[in-house]
């Protein structure tokens, strides 16, 4: 049972602690959210999990794999996929090509097979393409299939990010603010995708999101970071009632469930 364990992770940048002794668990098949003010260290934590940063202290494991020192591509090969906060797409390539790239580790033929492109390589490529098209259907990206992603509207690019992560066929999906720059209706669509991914494929999800409405509604468990430290954790109800969270993050008691400021704020 692959569970993600983050144990006492500390991350330092030249004397400055971006993370201090953070621990968390992502049980199989659950949606776990991380919230906190800007600069709290949410993305840095994700970076530690996905191998872009290596924790100064502490340990991160996924099932039997130790991620603490693994390179990003190795982490990916363990079944952890990620959508980035600031759009890390291959801007010049089309949506289809972006997704095809995500199948890299699933293709198992050599450079020699590549050269000949007959039999193994050709067959796998065809299957691969079919797989990608299914994801495109699922994420409702048909209309943009052949557009260079750099020219797509911001919100659509975010959706491509998620689709590309999904194409990796992960067991754990890390989503860094997938709904930034979307209006309520579009957020609803994205939530639907996330819930479907979790429910139908049993994929665990780590979600970073500033929209507390979304976070409170779909998370099984929430962790709150502030200044690199975990200041609260628990179910949505527990967290939204926690005074420290209110002070550090929302500024308003019960903000998460009040309709007037709630949505989007």
């Amino acid at each position, binding site marked *: 049972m692959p569970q993600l364990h983050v144990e006492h992770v500390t991350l330092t940048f030249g004397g400055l602690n971006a993370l201090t002794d953070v621990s968390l668990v992502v049980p199989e098949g659950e949606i776990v959210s991380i919230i906190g003010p800007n600069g709290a260290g949410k993305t840095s934590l994700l970076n530690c999990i996905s191998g872009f940063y290596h924790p100064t202290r502490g340990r991160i494991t996924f099932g039997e794999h130790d991620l603490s020192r693994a390179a990003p591509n190795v982490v990916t090969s363990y079944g952890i996929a990620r959508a980035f906060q600031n759009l890390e797409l291959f801007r010049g390539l089309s949506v289809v090509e972006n997704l095809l790239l995500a199948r890299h580790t699933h293709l198992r033929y050599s450079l020699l097979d590549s050269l000949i492109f007959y039999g193994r390589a050709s067959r796998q490529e065809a299957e691969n393409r079919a797989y990608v098209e299914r994801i495109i259907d699922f994420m409702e990206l048909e209309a943009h299939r052949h557009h260079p992603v750099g020219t797509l*509207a911001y919100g659509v690019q975010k959706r491509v990010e998620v689709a590309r992560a999904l194409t990796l066929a992960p067991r754990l999906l890390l989503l860094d*603010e997938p709904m930034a720059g979307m209006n309520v209706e579009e*957020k609803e669509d994205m939530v639907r995708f996330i819930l479907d991914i979790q429910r139908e494929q049993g994929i665990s999800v780590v979600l970073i999101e500033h929209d507390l409405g979304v976070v409170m509604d779909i998370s099984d468990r929430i962790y709150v970071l502030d200044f690199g430290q975990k200041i609260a954790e628990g179910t949505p109800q527990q967290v939204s009632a926690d005074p420290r969270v209110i002070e550090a993050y929302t500024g308003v008691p019960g903000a998460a469930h009040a309709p007037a400021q709630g949505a989007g704020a």
Partner: protein
Amino acid sequence: MGSDLTINNVEVVYHDIIQVLRGVSLTVRAGRVTSLLGTNGAGKTTTLRAISGLLKPENGKIREGTVSFEGRILSGLGGTEVVKAGVVQVPEGRRVFKHLTVEENLRAGAILGRGHWSSDLERIYSYFPKLRALRHKQAGYTSGGEQQMIAIGRALMAHPKVLLLDEPSLGLAPLLVAEIFDNVRQINRQEGVGVLVVEQNASIALRHSDYGYVMEGGRIVMEGESAALADNPDVKEFYLGVTEHGGRKSFRDVKSYKRRKRWM
């Protein structure tokens, strides 16, 4: 009004073929805050680019219509002229100069040399006291909210009469969103700067603006006083996430059907 920024029936195409704006008209009244809402890809950013003269680098063109400000036609001018005319855009996604320090970022905004940059710096620091503490830090390593402050402060260095903000709340935590909008209001009041703010976060945008427009598929589909817009049932459902009964809709409710928007 002479000092309003008006956009009249503007059509924009990218690469000569991709039409994005289909006859957009709107007015940014002097000294007031106007908001522009809309779905992804509706053309909000494009509208701002059409005003600020930043279409060219994206290979876009105003094919028809005009943008005018204080009786001058801005459409067709380059970005520098538009800034000189007093209209400054704060681009989407907090594009600060990553390798420059905070203070250098602000100074890079002072290129028009109106007033003296050192006194202008003080002005910006009075709006954003946080930035003063960070003045020698590389902007690339500041947090999201701070970057947004830098971007707005940098634009203010040019003494704009109209400020165009593209999704200032993007990626910001709730407290900071509120802070930024308070700052914008303050600037608007103290300097009489007109503001056009593009937002996805409709609730806060409508709360802090005087007038609003809603855009879909390259057209303005609705406009009105902000308070009135916030009361519209469609805006309520699609932009504010409020159910017909007034409660907040839960994201967990599986949508078995999708209600179409009326204006489409």
